[in-house]
């Protein structure tokens, strides 16, 4: 199974617009949106939901007010400041609760319940590009890494069932939990950057992250014409780390126009920008390896 994961470190470099274009260009694939916190790929792919389910992960403490004697032990043992004491009435601020169970274990009255925590919803869908696996984390929730892992497992399952050997995944910004989870078993991590101080700085960190997990990566420079100096600096950096640059794209309002039409930039009448994206997709093929014959 080949898996292309598109990440960037810095947000807003064009991950989702490019992933949508790759989804349009790839012949047989399963599409996956691993940015479960602020997913946007569905705005272009317009999925029809086939199946969905709750994403339960971890637990949350709940104090039973009738059994609680207001001894304050829970507040003392909580490392996250999640227990509130309002005039002797103890409650859990669920947003701060880490689900560690320490208060449950130490409550002398066994007055703390520990139900499952509902963190979001996963979806298995069909799109004009093929099957799509996606999710929405509930606002303020954590455990997004576990949801990402769940989506990846579902994408693999779908691909195997359909005899497809390519998964194209849109990742989240940053380098933390959800991004780390999105990288596991990636065939190639495509790093989308831009020639700005933030673009280069954040690229360096995602390159180190890929290296940390020993994963092959390639770089795409979007909005490449914004600053020649930073573009050169990105090339120099990539050369020093032996990372291929698979292409450049200009700062072009066509990306936004396509987004407003609800289309991938390669859909509809061919534009110069679309042609460049096609070339980049072709450049990625040798790095992704040959499709397995099924």
């Amino acid at each position: 199974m080949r898996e292309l994961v598109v990440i960037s470190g810095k947000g807003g470099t064009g991950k989702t617009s490019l992933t949508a274009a790759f989804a349009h260009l790839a012949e047989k694939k399963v599409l996956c949106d691993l940015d479960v916190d602020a997913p946007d790929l569905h705005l272009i792919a317009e999925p029809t939901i086939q199946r969905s389910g709750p994403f339960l992960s971890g637990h949350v403490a709940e104090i039973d007010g009738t059994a609680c004697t207001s001894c304050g032990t829970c507040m003392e043992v909580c490392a996250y400041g999640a227990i509130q004491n309002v005039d002797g009435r103890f409650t859990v601020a669920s947003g701060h609760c880490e689900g560690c169970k320490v208060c449950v274990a130490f409550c002398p009255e066994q007055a703390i319940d520990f139900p499952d925590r509902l963190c979001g919803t996963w979806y298995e869908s069909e799109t004009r590009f093929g099957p799509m696996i996606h999710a929405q984390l509930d606002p303020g929730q954590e455990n997004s890494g576990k949801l990402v892992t769940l989506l990846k497992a579902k994408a693999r399952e779908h691909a195997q069932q359909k005899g497809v050997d390519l998964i194209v995944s849109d990742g989240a910004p940053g380098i933390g939990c959800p991004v780390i989870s999105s990288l596991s078993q990636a065939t190639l991590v495509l790093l989308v950057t831009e020639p700005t101080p933030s673009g280069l700085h954040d690229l360096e960190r995602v390159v180190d992250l890929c290296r940390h997990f020993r994963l092959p990566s390639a770089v795409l420079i979007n909005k490449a014409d914004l600053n020649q100096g930073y573009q050169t600096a990105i090339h120099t950096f990539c050369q020093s780390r032996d990372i291929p640059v698979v292409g450049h794209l200009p700062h072009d309002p066509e990306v936004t126009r396509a987004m407003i039409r609800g289309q991938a930039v390669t859909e509809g009448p061919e534009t110069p920008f679309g042609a460049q994206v096609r070339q980049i997709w072709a450049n990625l093929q040798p790095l992704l390896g040959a499709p397995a014959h099924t």
Partner: protein
Amino acid sequence: MIIAVASGKGGTGKTTVSAALASIWKRPVLAVDMDVEEPNLHLFLKPESVRSEAAYLEVPVLDKALCKLCGACAELCQFKAISLMGAHLLIFPDMCHGCGGCMRICPEGALQKGQRELGVVEAGITSEGIPCLTGRLRIGEAMSPPLMGKVRQRMQAMAEQDFRDIIIDAPPGVSCPAMTAVQDADVILLVTEPTPFGLHDLRLAWQAFHPLGKPMGVVINRAGVGDDQVQAFCREKGLPLLTEIPFRRDIAEHYAHGGILTQLDAGMKATFEDLAQRLERMACEGQGVSHA
């Protein structure tokens, strides 16, 4: 007064707005970068004489001589950081969330306090005298909220010293890290762009932050690039649209050079001075409401 600059979608201009606001802020101000995964504010404010201090999470270390393999710690741990395998107790410090439950529950005192490095907290000061605080997550570290907690402790200590206002550059998204970054704010400033992605993620941000009951306002960046759906959403939710930054090539290039927007031209400076005044009014009114 604390202003948190947030957004659902990444790359909408949080750092641009944070740096510009800090540069023209009338009262003493502390600039805090809470996007510890990809901190960028320092690239624009350029603090000098930066002091870097490692930050740690307390994780268990086993004293094998004392452990009687009762398994109480492994049973309590919700994060698979401790596992009892036959006659061996295994600790996986990378999985630990630092709750301290294992050390507390061990009847033999066999688990002692160890450390896992989360990253560093950096403090410096710009040539204009603006102190800057940044968290920088260690590459490979999965959890950002504990490091954000350390940045927050430093932030509170620094602001208390001389009653400074604070501008927080928050991480993107609406999950745990973003919520952690905005919790202390008197006003949340949402930066978005007038596109379908911008609108969708602004709606997510509104859903996440609205229950906090804090005053919120919106800045539209790259105004003119897309459609007018964001304006319609702001009207529908009663979200004040505080200012618009036009979609202009010279603005994008100025940013790409590492420039602060208020230094581009007099118009931009006036735009942000006006935004700062509006934010101050919102913070005062917000406090008035909560005292009523």
